[in-house]
C-alpha cells in the first residue's frame, strides 16, 4: 500500500513531530507509515485524514498485490 502522507504533510508545512502530536501518536509511527514500513490501523488512518481534511482514499492507495 502506498500513501501520500509525506506529500500532504510537507504541503501543510508540518514536521513529522507536529503531525504526530496533532493525532497523538509517536513520531516513529508517522515516519514508518510514510516510508511504507508500517501499515497503520483504521483509527490512525482516519485521524491523519481528518487532520488534512480529506478522505482516507486520497491518502492511501492500494497496490495490485494488496
Amino acid at each position, binding site marked *: 500500500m502506498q500513501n501520500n502522507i509525506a506529500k500532504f504533510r510537507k504541503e501543510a508545512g508540518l514536521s513529522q513531530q507536529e503531525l504526530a502530536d496533532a493525532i*497523538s501518536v509517536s513520531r516513529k509511527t508517522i515516519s514508518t507509515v510514510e516510508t511504507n514500513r508500517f501499515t497503520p490501523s483504521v483509527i490512525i488512518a482516519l485521524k491523519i485524514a481528518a487532520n488534512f481534511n480529506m478522505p482516507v482514499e486520497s491518502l492511501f492507495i492500494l497496490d495490485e498485490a494488496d
Partner: protein
Amino acid sequence: MSNHDIKNEEKFMGQNAWFSLFMGVTLLIISVYPLLTQTSAPLLFFGTAAFLGSFCMFVIRGGFTWKMKYHLTYKDEYLNTIDTIAYKHVVLGLLFSMGGVYLFSDDLALEVSHTMMASFYLAVMCLIYGVSILWQSKD
C-alpha cells in the same frame, strides 16, 4: 492518550532497549567467565552490583513515570507492534540457542552449571530484545 504519555513511552522503550543490551552483555560475561577461570564467586558479586547499578541508573534517571511498570503493552500502536515483534525475535533466538546447546552440550556438560546455562539463556534473550528494538526503531 496525551502527547506527554507518548513521549514517555518512546523514552521508556529506548531506555529499555539499552538496559536490555547492557544486561545481556553483563549476563553473557557472567555465564562465560567461570568457564575460563573455574570460579564464579567474584563474578556473582560483580553481576549483582552491575545489575543493581544499571537498574538504578535506568529506572531512577530514566525520566518515565512509575505507573509504566504496571503496563505490559504500549499504548502507541507502532511501539506496541515493534515490542511484539521483538518478543517474537527473542523466542526464535532462544529456540536456536537451545538447539545449539542441545547439539553441543555433551562437550560442555562437565564444566557448565545450570546457573551458567540459565545466565546464558537470559543473556541471549536480553541481547536479542535490545538489538531488535533498536533495529526496528531506526528511521
